[in-house]
């Protein structure tokens, strides 16, 4: 019997495939294409304490092997999420991660405090969104700053706490160690890489915010390297993210130490890509005689 299940911070996932924050909304759009119960889990669109309208100007710009985005954390805010989106997510029969961003430690704490009272399974603390001026990523660059926000959130957080790391951190391993020391139950990595693009005719940046976040298959080798390094340094579950397009990418991430993975930009190429990945992974495990993911986890 092939076992795709994995336990992340006390929560059982039926398989290691999670839809990544910011690429899957709250699942509604994708539920028109397949039953979300097939997924290991869904990480919600990045939530902030208060509603955010997001960034102006161009928000998506294609690159070779991926795309830059500057959405700017457009989201309905925690209260509206709890009232209008969470009831839908709860009915889907999959694990719910609430991805939480913020500009200040106080905002993170207030948002997490509200989520404490809900049925969400896991909180994914986003200290790494590059698209919000002065916020988010400021916490994801220096390990000391990250330590402070994670440890303060940890004190009030009643849910399993996963911290989503930025690849733009000064030192990804030191960052990971600091977050675990501060009380993170798990880590997800990586968020998007800071990038930019220029309109050479108008001689202006493509994005109003100038700097945007790069994702897609082009970043996979770097993400894989970072998961490899971090998995050697910490003992908590790691969710690998970065340009995953098919089951082979998933196997690579698991072999370098990821417990589960998240699919982000892949959802844009094909709304049913997660299903293809789950099926492909299962077939691969049968072919290779792999009975559980644990057998291949971190073998590199």
């Amino acid at each position: 019997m092939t076992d795709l299940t994995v336990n992340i911070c006390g929560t059982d996932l039926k398989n290691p495939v999670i839809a990544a924050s910011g690429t899957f909304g709250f699942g509604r759009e994708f539920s028109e294409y397949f039953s979300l119960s097939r997924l290991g889990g869904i990480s919600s669109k990045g939530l902030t304490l208060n509603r955010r309208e997001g960034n102006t100007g161009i928000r998506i710009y294609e690159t070779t092997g991926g795309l830059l985005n500057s959405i700017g954390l457009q989201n309905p805010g925690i209260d509206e999420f709890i009232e209008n989106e969470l009831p839908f997510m709860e009915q889907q029969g999959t694990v719910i991660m609430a991805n939480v961003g913020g500009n200040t430690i106080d905002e993170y704490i207030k948002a997490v405090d509200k989520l404490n009272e809900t049925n969400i399974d896991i909180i994914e603390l986003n200290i790494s969104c590059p698209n919000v001026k002065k916020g988010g990523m400021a916490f994801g660059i220096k390990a000391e700053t990250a330590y402070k926000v994670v440890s303060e959130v940890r004190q009030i957080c009643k849910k399993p706490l996963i911290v989503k790391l930025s690849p733009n951190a000064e030192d990804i391993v030191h960052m990971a160690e600091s977050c675990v020391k501060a009380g993170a139950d798990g880590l997800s990595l990586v968020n998007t890489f800071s990038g930019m693009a220029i309109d050479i005719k108008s001689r202006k940046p493509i994005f109003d915010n100038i700097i945007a976040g790069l994702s897609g298959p082009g970043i996979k080798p770097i993400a894989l390297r970072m998961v490899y390094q971090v998995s050697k340094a910490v003992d908590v579950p790691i969710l690998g993210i970065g340009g995953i397009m098919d089951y082979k990418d998933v196997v690579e991430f698991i072999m370098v130490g990821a417990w589960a993975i998240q699919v982000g930009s892949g959802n844009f190429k094909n709304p049913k890509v997660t299903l293809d990945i789950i099926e492909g992974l299962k077939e691969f495990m049968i072919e290779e005689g792999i009975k559980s993911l644990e057998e291949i986890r971190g073998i590199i």
Partner: protein
Amino acid sequence: MKEGYREVIVYSNKQIASNIYEMKVVSDKDELRFEGKSGQFYMVRGWESLDPYLSRPISICNIEEDRLTFLYEVRGKGTHLISTLESGHSLEILGPLGNGFNINIKGNIALVSGGIGIAPMIYLAKSLHANVDFYCGFRNEIYYIDEIEENVENIFISTEDDSKGYNGFITEILKPEQYDVIFTCGPLPMMKRVVEMCKGKVRVYASMESRIACGIGACLGCTIETKSGIKRICKEGPVFYGEEVLFND
């Protein structure tokens, strides 16, 4: 459940003006017919590799029984690759997506297009059961007019180089007060002008364009500002009530 990307076969794909192509696709499954309203679009992918990464949104130009027509302009690598597909080749499409035009409107209707904005007007003119006039502006070369002729009363043409019809912009010859409703698709400045001309007098519905990543409303990459907040072009649109849209320059 909606179907995801599905394979279709190129029936024909030909250049009809500079950078403008008409592609007809058929299904490889006999029982499968194409669905969609005018103003809706499909995400189109005609290559195996991950470069270009994203599929291309192309509006429905026409649906005839088992045949779906796309009229598209080659603007970059993706549309160029689509233009190279020969008859018999396969490609993947996802759709129909978006809301489309309301075709149940009666009365005197004007369709106003600029350039490749003519594409959704073909199927729109065919779908409407009303008195329809068609205003189409082109920069220089005119194309595809004969495809709409039988479904409209009058056709007004403008070119910017005086090669055919009125010399100037199409908005300069549009008389909004003659109509109950106007549907428009084309460059942003043109649609903005149409909405301004009709403000408080005639209802305008505009089909908006944007870079689109997922096409299904998840990524929030194709949003526009409206009087009632941020809206997704691929989901709440691409057709919006003109006076709702905040046309930013």
